[in-house]
């Protein structure tokens, strides 16, 4: 049997039993209605805030101008002045939402919500307390931000690196997540795409490849860990040591250059990766208590260069920016 036939048969065998449910049409239409409903709700909430915002100003003006006659009005002034009207940020870009809430004197906590195929990533889908409610100054407002199963459509498009994350790209900068990556093997281009907090909080990751295209695989991937994520890396490294990996030295710091297996933290061996399978090489070390770095080389790219030597060169040349 040749490979094409084997492949066709494999594909067929995998899905021969699969049938779309007859209820699919109903499910699609329900999804469509939910989507419409969400947009309408967001619109209604905006109107409500507009009203909530104008009322206190009007009452304040009248109270300053002439003495209050009706006790109900007096009360209204008192109630509204006691707190902040929570602005509506549903449907807005998460960053803008944060600015709006902070400007109103509130604190913001954002969480990533469930996958949504209807919204682009980074849009606020709900907030608590809701818009129009009263809150004490400095109160916390939790916003749920959309992640998107269509993120790939977005990831497919080049992303622009926000200045606080670095200056890679056309300008020829080499800073990413507070680290200056001074050296990379010749011919590698930055892939204009990055991930934040995908590998634990706080982590930032980006990659370089020969084509520099977001649609191709990575050649070298870099993950910069800060905050809590640094502890995870320390533990992972201790585990490498226990499993018998020999540490190496990167600018006076203990580092491990290993092939990793499964589950995370386990070194590759013949049980968790059959021999002959490609193994990605990973160089890991803790730079300081607030910074750990992992540099990963894809098996494909590793074949073309001296993988370990290049990984060490990248690590020895880089400098934390702070």
């Amino acid at each position, binding site marked *: *049997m*040749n*490979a*094409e036939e*084997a*492949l*066709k*048969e*494999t*594909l*067929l*065998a*995998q899905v021969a039993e*699969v*049938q*779309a449910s007859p209820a*699919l*049409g109903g*499910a*699609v*239409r329900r*999804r*469509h209605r939910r*989507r419409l409903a969400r947009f309408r709700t967001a619109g209604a909430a905006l109107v409500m805030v507009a009203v909530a915002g104008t009322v206190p100003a009007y009452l304040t003006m009248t109270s300053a101008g002439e003495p209050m006659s009706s006790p109900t009005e007096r009360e209204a002034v008192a109630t509204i002045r006691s707190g902040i009207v929570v602005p509506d940020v549903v449907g807005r870009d998460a960053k803008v939402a944060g600015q709006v809430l902070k400007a109103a004197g509130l604190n913001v906590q954002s969480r990533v919500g469930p996958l949504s*195929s*209807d919204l682009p990533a980074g849009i606020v889908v709900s907030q608590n307390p809701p818009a129009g409610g009263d809150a004490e100054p400095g109160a916390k407002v939790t916003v749920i931000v959309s992640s998107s*199963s*269509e*993120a*790939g*459509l977005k*990831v*497919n498009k080049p992303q622009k690196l926000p200045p606080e994350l670095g200056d890679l790209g056309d300008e020829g900068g080499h800073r990413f997540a507070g680290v200056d990556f001074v050296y990379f093997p010749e011919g590698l281009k930055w892939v204009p795409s990055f*991930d934040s907090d*995908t*590998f634990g909080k706080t982590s930032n*990751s980006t990659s370089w490849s020969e084509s520099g295209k977001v*649609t*191709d*695989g*990575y050649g070298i*991937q870099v*993950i910069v860990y800060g905050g809590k994520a640094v502890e995870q890396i320390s533990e992972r490294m201790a585990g490498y040591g226990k499993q018998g990996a020999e540490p190496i030295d990167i600018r006076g710091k203990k580092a491990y250059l290993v092939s*990793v*297996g*499964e*589950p*995370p933290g386990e070194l*590759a061996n013949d*049980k*968790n*990766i*059959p021999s002959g*399978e490609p*193994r*990605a090489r*990973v160089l890991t070390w803790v730079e300081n208590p607030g910074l750990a770095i*992992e540099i*990963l080389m894809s098996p*494909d790219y590793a074949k073309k260069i001296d993988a370990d030597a290049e990984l060490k060169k990248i690590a020895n040349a880089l400098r934390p920016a702070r």
Partner: protein
Amino acid sequence: MTDEDESAFDEFLASRSTALLRTAILLCGASQHDAEDLVQGALEKVYRHWPRIRHDNPQAYARRVVVNAAISVARRRKVIQEITFARPPDTAVPPFDVDLREALFAELQRLPTRMRAVLVLRYWEDLSENETATLMGCSVGSVKSQASRGLARIRERMSSLEGALR
């Protein structure tokens, strides 16, 4: 949307949804449940624009939406897996007494996302090299090279299995 649009959409689903679902499963190696969710999302988009696209090859449009969504899901999983696991989970099959198909499917899941997509579109959807290139927004040459590299991996895995069984 008119009644006629609605019934045409139902006809479209009846004839195409199983194929779309199968393609989605093959592209991202997802469970049927996850793939259904993905396909529903894609079809909602088709439904949204149905009156406009129904006369203009809705099948190609739907396939493109499904393929894009599946590639992105697969790619995202792949990045995480490659970093943390170095290889996808549940593929640690011992080389002995395995079903050849299962081993090949596992190998397929390990291919780079777009390479796998090229193989699925060429050998499952039976698209031509030209059609595949148009759908994936790349050159015909890139389709050719990805397909031949992907097949080479499959071939390699086949021969290593045959070696192990001997």
